[in-house]
């Protein structure tokens, strides 16, 4: 057992923290209020090489793993979870998916562009009637000369109109049992017939862009099928294991921001003649918050370590996501509580953390889906 992070881990943490404090935190409230996609922040993250962190070196990335990514994402999310989710989806649901399942041709064509941030990746699985029941997708891919034509509507696509590449899961064998006839396709945003639909008005993560992606008779060349035909659902699920590490890391980041804000406010705010952190009611809330944070982070790091070592990790990824997202929401509720009336206003960041935290228990598998995964693996 060795809980120490390597120098390389610490270097990533420090450079990500420096970037987050300098370029993300000062703008987060403004971008949230304006619902403005953080174009400059994503560009700067690309310049730091963060977008290609997990892309193999031969394709222009840093060739690092899930634990490195988790450490990076905690820092980014502690400052701005809207930027955090954009990077997490790009990294874990696109880059890592392609690096693992893509052909040599797909990888050499797309990974360098993804690593440099020239193209941002997005993930299209969910549909209006396929949420938790993801195998129920009806977007169809019909075989034509030289490829497939895709038709359907994908919902809740993170990064939507700002993405350059989508991985789209569509039905290639409608007669196969549910989930057995689905394939994964790389779809360029520039292809004819791809458009962004309705933009979601969300409680939080308001600077991230979440839209429908509409596929209207989109021709996708044969060579853009990822992995084996009709085995796409397995890729979708395997990818989500990694994605859950990303979202769990996001939860850890928001959780830490809540704790840090609470420590700061409770040491400055005086009531009944002393700083409120001297009251057990407040101090114990923070003790629980800190303990939960530690537990969540350890679960996330363990899941990332398992995945980096090629060990089975499906159950552990779900456990990390389940625990970290719930703990994060408790922390956000308590952080607002510690701030009292002030925390209910936009003068303090905890108001935003409270709204941002709520999504971590929903996307990339709601909590009950994590429980399905965990219980089936027992």
């Amino acid at each position, binding site marked *: 057992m060795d809980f120490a992070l390597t120098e390389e881990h610490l270097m990533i943490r420090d450079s990500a923290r420096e970037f987050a404090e300098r370029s993300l935190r000062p703008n987060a409230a403004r971008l949230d209020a304006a619902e403005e996609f953080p174009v400059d922040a994503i560009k700067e993250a690309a310049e730091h090489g963060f977008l290609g962190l997990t892309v193999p070196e031969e394709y222009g990335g840093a060739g690092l793993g899930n634990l490195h990514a988790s450490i990076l994402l905690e820092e980014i999310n502690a400052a701005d979870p809207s930027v955090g989710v954009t990077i997490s989806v790009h990294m874990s649901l696109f880059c890592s998916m392609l690096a693992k399942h893509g052909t040599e041709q797909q990888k050499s064509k797309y990974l360098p562009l993804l690593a440099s941030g020239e193209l941002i990746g997005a993930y299209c699985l969910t549909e209006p009637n396929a949420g938790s*029941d993801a195998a129920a997708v009806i977007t169809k891919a019909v075989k034509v000369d030289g490829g497939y034509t895709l038709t359907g509507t994908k919902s809740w696509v993170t990064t939507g109109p700002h993405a350059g590449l989508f991985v789209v899961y569509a039905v290639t064998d409608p007669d196969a049992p549910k989930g057995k006839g689905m394939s994964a396709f790389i779809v360029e945003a520039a292809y004819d017939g791809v458009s962004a639909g309705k933009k979601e*008005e969300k409680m939080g993560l308001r600077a991230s862009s979440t839209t429908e992606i509409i596929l209207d008779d989109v021709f996708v060349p044969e060579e853009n099928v990822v992995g084996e035909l009709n085995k796409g659902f397995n890729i979708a699920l395997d990818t989500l294991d990694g994605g859950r590490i990303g979202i769990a890391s996001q939860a850890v980041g928001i959780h830490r921001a809540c704790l840090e804000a609470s420590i700061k406010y409770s040491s400055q705010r005086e009531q009944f003649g002393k700083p409120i952190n001297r009251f057990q009611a407040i101090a114990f809330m923070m003790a629980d918050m800190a303990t939960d944070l530690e537990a969540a982070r350890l679960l996330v790091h363990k899941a990332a370590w398992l995945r980096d070592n090629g060990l089975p990790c499906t159950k552990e990824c779900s456990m990390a996501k389940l625990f970290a997202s719930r703990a994060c929401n408790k922390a956000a509720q308590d952080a*607002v509580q510690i701030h009292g009336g002030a925390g209910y*206003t936009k003068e303090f960041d905890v108001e935003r953390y409270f709204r941002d935290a*709520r999504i971590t228990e929903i996307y990339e598998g709601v909590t009950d889906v994590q429980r399905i995964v965990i219980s089936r693996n027992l």
Partner: protein
Amino acid sequence: MSDLVTNFDLSEEQEMIRDTVRQFAREVIAPGAAHADEHKELNEAAWDGMVELCLPGLPFSEEWGGAGFDNLSYSIAVEEISRVCGSMGLTLAAHVSLGTWPIYAFGSQALKERYLPGLCSGEFMGAYALTEPGAGSDSASTQTTAVLDGDEYIINGAKCFTTNGSYSKCFVITVQTNAELGSKGIMAMVIDRDQPGFIIEPGEEKLGMRGSDWVNLVFQNCRVPKDAVLGEEGEGFSTFMKTLEGGRISIAALSLGIAQGALDQALAYSNEREQFGMSLNKHQAVAFKLADMETEIQAARHMVYHASRLKDAGRAYGAAAATAKYFASEVAMRATYEAIQIFGGNGYSREYPVERMYRDAKLCVIGEGTSEVQKIIISRDLLKRFASNNG
């Protein structure tokens, strides 16, 4: 009188209020709730409808233009409105319990004549200003000062988070007359909106209850006649504490309504939404969430109605109000949180009301005494009774 608090049936009058307000809330308030939240503006048409139903004066005697109903009827009205719109529930609760009741209970004949008819008819709203930037949970540390100068007090200081302020004609405020006396030096006064030296500033943007108005108040050498004092000098703080006891029942009713509204939404959505080939409510995980919500809401309703009945019976209700407020507001947090969970991604979207309900619910565990303040009250009451029983 013995069955006063064990009779769980509603009277015909109480049922009538419930049915009338329920229908009104669904037809008139609900359609505008999302708009009010999004645009951060009070739904004035909804208030006008509440005025027509005589809700602003519901629990006050007809002598002052009130409707003469009991406090339980009033709690039920707040509950039914909050079920579709927390902001309008809060508007009514703050107007009745905080803005009007202290004048009704403690005001001089002159003050009552000046303000109660307008408050009861809903011509204008009432507001209550206790909280200051430096005096939140520690409300006795009021820094706003009142210095006697002839027949007038000169007021200086600032108040924050004053609900309904933009629409209020009169403001019940606390001031410190003599800092050396601590809470005994606190006095309550009613200040008219038009008083020179009294400035009303817009409040900060809020997480929720965005369709409810709040303002910040500034007093700069504001001169107020002596007859604006509410109750006896030196008893201002207890006047405020008593006002808050009633206010807590209303926030408990508000919480109860929000929780019930979240359950209403979760029931409808889980019945209609299918995943894995069946409606969501056929999955145990979802059905059991609904069962937990229902159980907690029933318990909260008993507590809210019990506290209301105690007040109607003229019995002490401070501790009952605190337990009801603490419990019901936490139930509202859990119910709205779980309702979003049942809605999944849609629950995070502003297209469905549960997203707003969760943000609104968070006010309930903070306003009119945080959950922590309620626990101070509940535990002190408990320890006092323990000590007196064990002499």
